[in-house]
């Protein structure tokens, strides 16, 4: 094997913190070979972004970076001067930042930005234009000459991320550092970007350090994985081995925490929260949350030790035993089986009846405003006791629908009835009664709690509004409802800024539960949370459903999550319901091409080395001008001329309806499968 392209040995990053030093990154070592794709996985705060930035020496004062070795090819990055580093960045190391919406200069054209990047590295004249066109073509942007003249705001999110990658590739760097390159993107665009990364390696021999919190994303493209926790790499090795036989309890716990589209099963939320650099536990940083811990873990921090060919793990248990014992890491819950057997609510008892609901928004100035078709003529029922999932890409209208159901917004046309009563007619006492019966939990737990209210005050507001109990019983009630969501009583006096994201989301749920609702609407309830915390919240939802007989309506873009928590799934596309199916059917045999394409585009930890197929390439049409006929026909692989003329009705039976003239065929289920990644030269 040739010498590694990047060698990092014992990297430490420290920040001054009132006299002392804290170390968000403490002793990270790894290598990247030429043409290799390495995945760096970890939750927020684990130090993965700092590690990546240190590799191109972009961590500046007051931070202090030290390492036993930090070399890129022949260059010692620790000794390199600023001019040397500048020459290196872009030319040798390209960076793809996380957020494509803010990482391009908003007032320069794409062409100008690529030009600047090339000029800085001495490319001159006509060569610049040739190279710019080449990279834009390389990243799969249609009509490169036109893109060069565009400003970032004229491109869609996916195109912007491609342009950002093009910018990073302009000088053909040998190493590409991609920091969560797909986190801000929808599933179908994510699949396209992953294919692009795999192609880059195959044709240009680019080495890639891919940082992600999503195990499915790294499983598809990475040769090797590095799992980070609390500033250290706790496990590393070939992707398939790390995922199949994890040698560190954290890796295994992460895998248990990810919902999967293929099968609904009990999730395992890692208890507690990741430590911060300010208060890392003694011994192994993971031991307070670890199901395997032995006494030694509480005293000594385990070093990374070889546990197999090419594999390292920092765990006393696997080092002593030569592997982790094959016990279920969830000894506390033996009722996993009950979760997969679901009770479909009785169809005679609809709680919500949504009939012909349309919601349009006017955007722009009054004299030439455009109409955004957020929802168009939607009809469905929500039955008592069921759990309904609503999925779709951003812009599909799913959040608008959640807000309409919670009566935070009113439809432009159509009627929503709850328990037989038209919501539009509710006033005074009957409105208040509806508010008590239907509660909503929002996406962002950081903004859905008033920063000036303690946890107890927030819950108390709910109790007082609906006169749930006399004032002197309030404290007991608050304790009880906090207990229900798994928070101990002394959280009552805390303010939101003292809580982690998962804890805040629990408070939001507690507050909703305090008024004993019948329906809980959850709008992207876990998308702002870390993987291990997501599983805790999902578990909580499952539990509440069983214990409180709640009807759930969950809105999310994460298909596996929806599969996990719902009995029935509505798929929305550009303001229309395209499919309404039982969750099990939806996961394996959706009939509408859009629902099918969306499901197939989700990368899975179970398919190592395979990328989701790209079934849809065209861009999402603007919601101000939805296409005539079937709204999906512009991107559909089954489209016929008829689809652009007539609108397919939403029909079907046995609780499975879809709106398509030419649904996915049996043959297509087997032929449109994931693609195996071309491993390039290796």
């Amino acid at each position, binding site marked *: 094997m040739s010498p590694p392209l990047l060698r990092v040995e014992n990297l430490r990053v420290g920040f001054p913190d009132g006299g002392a030093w804290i170390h968000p990154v403490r002793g990270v070592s790894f290598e990247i070979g030429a043409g290799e794709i390495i995945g760096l996985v970890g939750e927020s705060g684990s130090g993965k972004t700092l590690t990546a930035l240190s590799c191109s020496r972009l961590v500046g004062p007051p931070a202090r970076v030290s390492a036993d070795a930090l070399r890129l090819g022949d260059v010692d990055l620790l000794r390199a001067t600023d001019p040397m580093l500048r020459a290196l960045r872009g030319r040798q190391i390209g960076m793809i930042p996380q957020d494509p919406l803010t990482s391009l200069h908003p007032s320069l054209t794409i062409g100008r930005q690529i030009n600047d990047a090339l000029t800085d590295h001495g490319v001159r004249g006509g060569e610049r234009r040739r190279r710019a066109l080449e990279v834009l073509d390389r990243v799969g942007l249609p009509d490169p000459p036109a893109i060069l003249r565009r400003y970032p705001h004229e491109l869609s999110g996916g195109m912007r991320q491609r342009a950002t990658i093009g910018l990073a590739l302009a000088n053909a760097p040998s190493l590409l550092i991609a920091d969560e390159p797909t986190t801000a993107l929808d599933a179908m665009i994510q699949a396209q970007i992953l294919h692009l990364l795999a192609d880059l390696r195959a044709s240009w021999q680019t080495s890639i350090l891919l940082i992600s919190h999503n195990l499915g994303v790294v499983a598809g493209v990475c040769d090797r994985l590095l799992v980070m926790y609390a500033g250290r790499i706790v496990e590393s090795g070939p992707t398939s081995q790390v995922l199949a036989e994890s040698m560190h309890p954290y890796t295994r716990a992460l895998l248990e925490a990810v919902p999967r589209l293929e099968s609904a099963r009990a999730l395992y939320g890692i208890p507690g929260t*990741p430590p911060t650099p300010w208060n890392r536990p003694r011994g192994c940083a993971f031991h307070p949350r670890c199901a395997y811990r032995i006494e030694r873990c509480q005293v000594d921090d385990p070093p990374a030790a070889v546990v197999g060919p090419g594999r390292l793990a920092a765990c006393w248990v696997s080092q002593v035993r030569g592997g982790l014992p094959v016990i279920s890491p969830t000894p506390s819950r033996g009722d996993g089986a009950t979760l997969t057997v679901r009770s479909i609510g009785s169809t005679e008892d609809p709680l919500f009846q949504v009939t012909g609901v349309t919601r349009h928004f006017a955007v722009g100035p009054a004299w030439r405003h455009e109409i955004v078709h957020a929802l168009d003529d939607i009809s469905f029922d929500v039955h008592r006791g069921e759990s309904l999932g609503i999925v779709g890409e951003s812009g599909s209208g799913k959040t608008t629908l959640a807000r309409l159901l919670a009566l935070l917004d009113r439809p432009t046309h159509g009627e929503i009835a709850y328990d037989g009563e038209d919501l539009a007619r509710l006033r005074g006492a009957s*409105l208040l009664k509806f*508010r008590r019966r239907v509660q909503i939990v929002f*996406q962002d737990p950081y903004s859905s709690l008033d920063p000036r209210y303690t946890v107890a005050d927030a819950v108390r507001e709910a109790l007082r509004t609906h006169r749930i109990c006399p004032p002197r019983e309030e404290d007991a009630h608050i304790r009880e409802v906090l207990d229900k969501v798994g928070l101990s009583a002394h959280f009552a006096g805390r303010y939101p800024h*003292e809580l*982690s*994201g998962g*804890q805040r989301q629990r408070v939001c749920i507690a507050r909703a539960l305090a008024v004993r609702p019948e329906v809980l609407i959850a709008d992207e309830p876990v998308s702002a949370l870390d993987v291990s915390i997501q599983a805790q919240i999902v578990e909580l939802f499952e539990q509440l459903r069983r214990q409180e007989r709640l009807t759930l309506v969950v809105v999310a873009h994460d298909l596996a999550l929806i599969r996990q928590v719902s009995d029935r799934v509505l798929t929305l596309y550009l303001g229309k319901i395209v499919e309404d199916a039982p969750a099990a059917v939806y996961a394996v045999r959706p009939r509408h091409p859009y629902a099918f394409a969306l499901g197939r585009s989700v990368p899975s930890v179970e398919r190592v080395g395979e990328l989701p197929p790209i079934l849809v390439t065209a861009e999402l049409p603007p919601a101000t001008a939805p296409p005539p006929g079937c709204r999906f026909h512009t991107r559909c692989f089954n489209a016929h001329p008829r689809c652009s003329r007539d609108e397919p009705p939403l029909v079907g039976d046995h609780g499975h309806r879809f709106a398509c003239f030419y649904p996915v065929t049996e043959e297509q289920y087997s032929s449109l499968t994931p693609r195996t990644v071309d491993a390039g030269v290796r």
Partner: protein
Amino acid sequence: MSAVRTWLRQPPATLVSGGIVAATVLLAIVGPTLAPFNPERPTPLVLLPPSPRHVFGTDASGIDVLSVALAAFRVDVVIALVSVGISLIAGIMLGAVAGYGFNGSRLAAWASTIILRLLDLVQSIPVFILALALVGMFGQTVRNVVIGVAFVNLPVFARLTRSAVRSVEHREFVAASRALGVRETGILGSHVLPNSLDGTIAYASIAVGGAILLTAGLSFLGAGVRPPTPEWGAEIASGAGYIVTGQWWISVLPGLVLSAVVLSFALLGDAARAALERAGRPAAMPGAQVLTVPAGEERMPA
């Protein structure tokens, strides 16, 4: 103790201006009793230059300038504080109504439009001219000066509150309370306003400086508090004619006192605003310094 240490870490400009503001407020209470001479009774000792006995000298009526400068604290600073207090409260109320949408209420939209157009009307007239006209119309009493100064300051407070209310209104905790069934007025009073006032209150400190300047300015033009009430603007005006003949102290020394006070209020306001921005930052960076709880404390219920 830690509060003292935090305070001492502030930049020197903040420390000095904070000290002057504290002294100003103190002098507004005890200033007149510290005056070595009667600031309203003329004496034959006219136009004496500064000396150990008359540190700021005397003016054309033989009144000790230092005594006037000290006694004027009570007049100018009290007028400014009271008028800013009035415009702060009225401005917050108007701004809240103009900014909050009451969940898309038509009536609220109309009220908002009307308030905003009235504010435009007030703001389209130069502040000084407007204050001059108000005091001229209703008479030169302390009360009318207070009302005039309050009136011209009101639009800024109303607009600041309005824009803050409009941004807080779209935070999710407002929708959360709405979905809970809390009444709109309740949401405005207990969630939106408390989270909207930081910037407005920081600005109040800057406005106090401006109000002192306006009060003094009105008197300088003879449209403010009437003589013989000791007042900075009037004293500066009375000395203006003597500067050319060399008796500079009558205008310059009270003017320096005035400048120091106004500048200090402005600097303190800036510091307050900067401090609020710093305090606001961790909220924007989720999880920056989250309190971590041991695993046992947070658990799934059985």
